[in-house]
């Protein structure tokens, strides 16, 4: 077996050496007795292209190291070489199960750079869509997590409801998934008239669907055996290892940025943060199921108070003028031309914006040097950090339990490798 190391040197390695060497730097405690197993990158239960290097004693995991980077597309570098608006479409493609949450973090960071705030109507619409995205993302999680643990039918029910939410996204943005609907200073355009009744209909039927999922899983003995007491991590360890989102809340730490660092008007809504007690796969599952109900509560309140008025702020350096004005005002034409040729130019400075995505803390760090392209764009993606504690949770368990744990921390490889 040969492997090219560096540009011009060739090293001779045995297959065993190669396995141990490539990718992870994991320390192997007993190379004589234990077996090394490479799980992935093409493996259905790793939810993408994640490779796990496992050291196994029989079927028990002695040590584990995640190996990532198979989906690395250099999104940060690309965003830094594009204008602010062009970078927006790339944020969709990081966490492709809830693009709206990524959009929100990026857009709020740009607005923070400018020091402006969206109009009340835009903020409420953003909240509605972010919460719908959370429900859609949790539905994919529930379906795939259940399919990993051999409960096949849940997947079909979950995707039926998810498709309804994607239709709602298509209604507002024209796209099922990669909407890029939130724009600096507001929204792409106002929501259509059919949107509100369609969301109300969703609010009506979705609680019964939650009851369906509960009937399938909550008291299912196989499900309970596979999830209860598996992959336990204490709240203290979870904080130390930077876990966030429902994965952290399952361990009893009620950290939710919508409550503690409210953005986009989340402080106006009345909702609870579900917190688990045991820190195992089952607790994390319960937290996410409870979040369905809480998201519905937020959406209902938001629809009730949806204010009128414009969806975009009246700042022509950020938002292009309406089409109707272009025929009458030379100034509007100039603004329109400058905005689409030169782009947004935020003042110099650096900011970071935290949002609570379905998976945990999403942080967008932007540094502007006064030009139309971000000098530095960094995304702290929750899946990437949650993955770090996977070895802590899996040691001493079976390989099959590792599958349950990967499902329970709800990783998306698109945002891990970005």
């Amino acid at each position, binding site marked *: 077996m040969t492997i090219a*190391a560096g540009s011009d040197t060739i090293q001779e390695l045995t297959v065993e050496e190669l396995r141990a060497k490539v990718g992870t*730097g994991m320390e192997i405690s007993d190379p004589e007795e234990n077996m090394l197993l490479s799980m992935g990158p093409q493996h259905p239960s790793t939810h993408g292209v994640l490779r796990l290097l496992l050291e196994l004693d029989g079927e028990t995991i002695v040590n584990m190291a995640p190996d990532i980077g198979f989906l690395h597309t250099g999104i940060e*570098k690309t965003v830094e070489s594009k204008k602010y608006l062009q970078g927006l479409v790339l944020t969709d493609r990081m966490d492709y199960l809830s693009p709206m949450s990524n959009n929100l973090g990026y857009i709020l960071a740009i607005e923070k750079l400018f020091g402006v705030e969206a109009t009340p109507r835009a903020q409420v619409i953003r909240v509605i869509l972010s919460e719908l995205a959370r429900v859609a993302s949790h539905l994919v999680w529930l379906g795939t997590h259940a399919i990993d643990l051999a409960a096949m039918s849940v997947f079909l029910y979950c995707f039926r409801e998810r498709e309804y939410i994607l239709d709602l996204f298509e209604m507002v943005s024209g796209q099922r998934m990669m909407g890029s609907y939130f724009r600096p200073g507001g929204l792409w355009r106002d929501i259509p008239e059919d949107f509100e009744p369609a969301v109300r209909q969703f609010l009506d039927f979705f609680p019964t669907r939650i009851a369906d999922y509960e009937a399938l899983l909550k008291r299912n003995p196989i499900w309970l055996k596979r999830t209860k007491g598996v992959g336990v991590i204490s709240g203290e360890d979870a904080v130390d*290892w930077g876990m966030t989102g429902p994965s952290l809340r399952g361990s009893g730490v009620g*950290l939710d940025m919508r409550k503690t660092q409210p953005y986009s008007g989340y402080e106006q809504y009345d909702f609870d943060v579900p917190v688990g007690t045991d820190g195992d796969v089952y607790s994390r599952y319960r937290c996410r199921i409870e979040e369905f109900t809480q998201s519905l509560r937020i959406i209902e309140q938001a629809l009730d108070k949806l204010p009128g008025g414009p969806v975009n702020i009246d700042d022509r350096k950020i938002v292009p003028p309406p089409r109707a004005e272009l025929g009458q005002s030379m100034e509007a034409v100039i603004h329109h031309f400058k905005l689409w040729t030169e782009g947004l130019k935020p003042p110099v400075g*650096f*900011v970071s914006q935290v949002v609570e995505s379905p998976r945990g803390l999403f*942080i967008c*760090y932007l540094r502007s040097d006064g030009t139309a392209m971000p000098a530095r764009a960094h995304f702290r993606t929750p899946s990437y*950090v949650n993955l770090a504690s996977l070895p802590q949770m899996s040691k001493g368990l079976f390989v099959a339990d590792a599958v349950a744990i990967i499902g329970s921390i709800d990783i998306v490889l698109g945002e891990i490798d970005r």
Partner: protein
Amino acid sequence: MNLDQLAVDKIRAAFPEAIEEVIDHRGERTLVIQSPQIVKVCELLKDDSELRYDFLMDVVADDMLPDSPRFAVNYHLYSIPNSHQLRLRVQVEDPEKGPATVAPVWSIATWLEAEVWDLMGIRFKDNKGLRRLFMPEDWQGHPLRKDYPLGYEEVQFSFSLDEIGKKKPFAEE
């Protein structure tokens, strides 16, 4: 009590020289810390009974080319008991002699610093876990640096026979 100010006061009391600059921008406070003091300051911020910055959210490196010092590392801290956010910033002149790892304070730092090393090339002292996370094992260079080319794809097609000949593997005579 204003937690921003409390943190500054506590650090100044314990390490008078540590804070180089305090930046306030858009309601976010950034403390620029001297590189050799970073671990001590982090320990103080985490262990102090009033501050309790128990959560390291993110480590971000910045490349300020052509400024000097060229690099900066941002640490985003969060205090869960106080619901408060703080950013520490360390200026780095030589990326090979970066700040010491803060892994003794927060375990997740090993993982976050590995990302910084892979993509920006700042070597954190005493961090044993620095490895190529995203890039291939044998990759040369660190892509997020400002002097790293974007790497547009080489043009594959040409009408010039000389250009074509350069790329063709001819059998050695």
